[in-house]
């Protein structure tokens, strides 16, 4: 067993294989970043719609709530399959990258929307009432009063979600996107030892995820400090 590992080692870490894996890492990071950033923007829109006042907007609010509640309860793998076969109906030969990004986007929108809503609701009511009294429009209240105060609450969990999603993107390998896990499966199929291949893949995920987790923790501490030092009344 061990001899086999040692025998395979130089062949496994050949320049071609390393480039192959590096592409996988790049793909994983690109998928996560693009998908989650788009998801963040859409989630923002979703929360804005969810907080529309007035009885006429009740269906809009209901729709926003339903979206969040439903897509947080469906596994990411199932969403990926749904997107795969749904897009095939509308677009011929859609790229797998597009499918993966859409799936990640749908899923991360639902999760980030809850984070953003929590952030918005952390702003004291009196602030919003004051803005209302000064005849601020809804958009102006959001951009000038709510958002500046809720960033420190929103950013750390949103970043943490994005980082944790690096790991969850491994599931899109199932529909054939060339990201890190898929590359690992290919190398395994080429006859390399499973322990060697998946050990390396696990290590690569760890090297992506751990430093970013630490960065996120640092960011959280920093932002919490900035919140704390705000002049008190």
């Amino acid at each position, binding site marked *: *067993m061990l001899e086999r590992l040692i025998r395979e080692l130089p062949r496994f870490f050949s320049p071609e294989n390393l480039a192959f894996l590096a592409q996988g890492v790049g793909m994983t990071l690109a998928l996560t970043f693009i998908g989650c950033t788009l998801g963040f923007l859409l989630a923002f829109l979703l929360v804005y719609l969810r907080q529309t006042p007035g009885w006429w907007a009740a269906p809009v609010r209901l729709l926003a709530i339903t979206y969040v509640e439903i897509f947080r309860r469906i596994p990411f793998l199932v969403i990926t399959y*749904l997107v795969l076969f749904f897009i095939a109906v509308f677009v011929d030969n859609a790229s797998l990258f597009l499918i993966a990004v859409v799936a990640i986007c749908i899923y991360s929108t639902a999760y980030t929307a809850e984070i953003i809503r929590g952030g918005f609701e952390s702003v004291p009511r009196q602030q919003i009432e004051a803005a209302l009294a000064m005849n601020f429009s809804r958009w102006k209240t959001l951009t000038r009063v709510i958002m500046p105060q809720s960033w420190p609450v929103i950013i750390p969990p949103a970043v943490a979600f994005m980082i944790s999603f690096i790991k969850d993107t491994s599931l899109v390998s199932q529909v054939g996107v060339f990201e890190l896990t898929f590359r690992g499966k290919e190398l395994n199929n080429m006859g390399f030892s499973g322990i060697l291949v998946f050990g390396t893949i*696990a290590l690569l995920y760890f090297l992506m995820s751990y430093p970013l987790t630490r960065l996120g923790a640092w960011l959280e501490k920093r932002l919490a400090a900035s919140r704390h030092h705000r002049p008190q009344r």
Partner: protein
Amino acid sequence: MNYTFQFGVALDGLPQLLKGALLTFELGVVTFWGGALIGLFFAALKTFGSRPVRWLAQAYVVFFTNTPALIQIYFLYFGLPEFGIRWSNITCVLIGLTLNAGAYLTEIMRAGFLSVRATELEAAETLGFSLPQQIRYVIVPHIAKTIYPAIANFFIVILVMGTSIGAVVGVNELTGEAINLSTENYRWLEMFIVAACIYVVLTLIASISLALIGRWAFRVKAKIF
């Protein structure tokens, strides 16, 4: 856009999908309790252990929370046979997911341990509480209140995100059954819509019962929605 939905075919597979849903639920429960035991053990080590023990527990948590559960399962499924250890796919999924859940639950439980303050225990002792009484009236309510919402939420995460990974190595839980049935009748879209609905219903039932249990047993206001 020339696609005709045929839900009839998908609904014919409903009994099989429900059988899959039952396996999903069983996997979720076993993984959760296994993970809870591991979590309790490592949280105790992390809180009360000596320095090397704490470091070891921390290494376990950091490693398992920073690598995908899918890779952990692949490692067990494709890697271990080289050592002559051949587990069935369902064993690999159970062990992989349990170890993974254990790492997350360690962090949750540790937060619970830290929420009990020494001064409160001293106050209870001053009031003449015996040790069982202290546990019953001071420690447990504290821990339950701090960690119950997080734990209830994590159970849903395991039930949905966790168990569906099993489909990748061919376990016939809900997602796996949906894949199996679709490869027979090519109604992927309908089959997965039905499966998604079952997931929504399953997790809604789980969320509501967990919220009610929390309210009744620990007086925790756990959110349903």
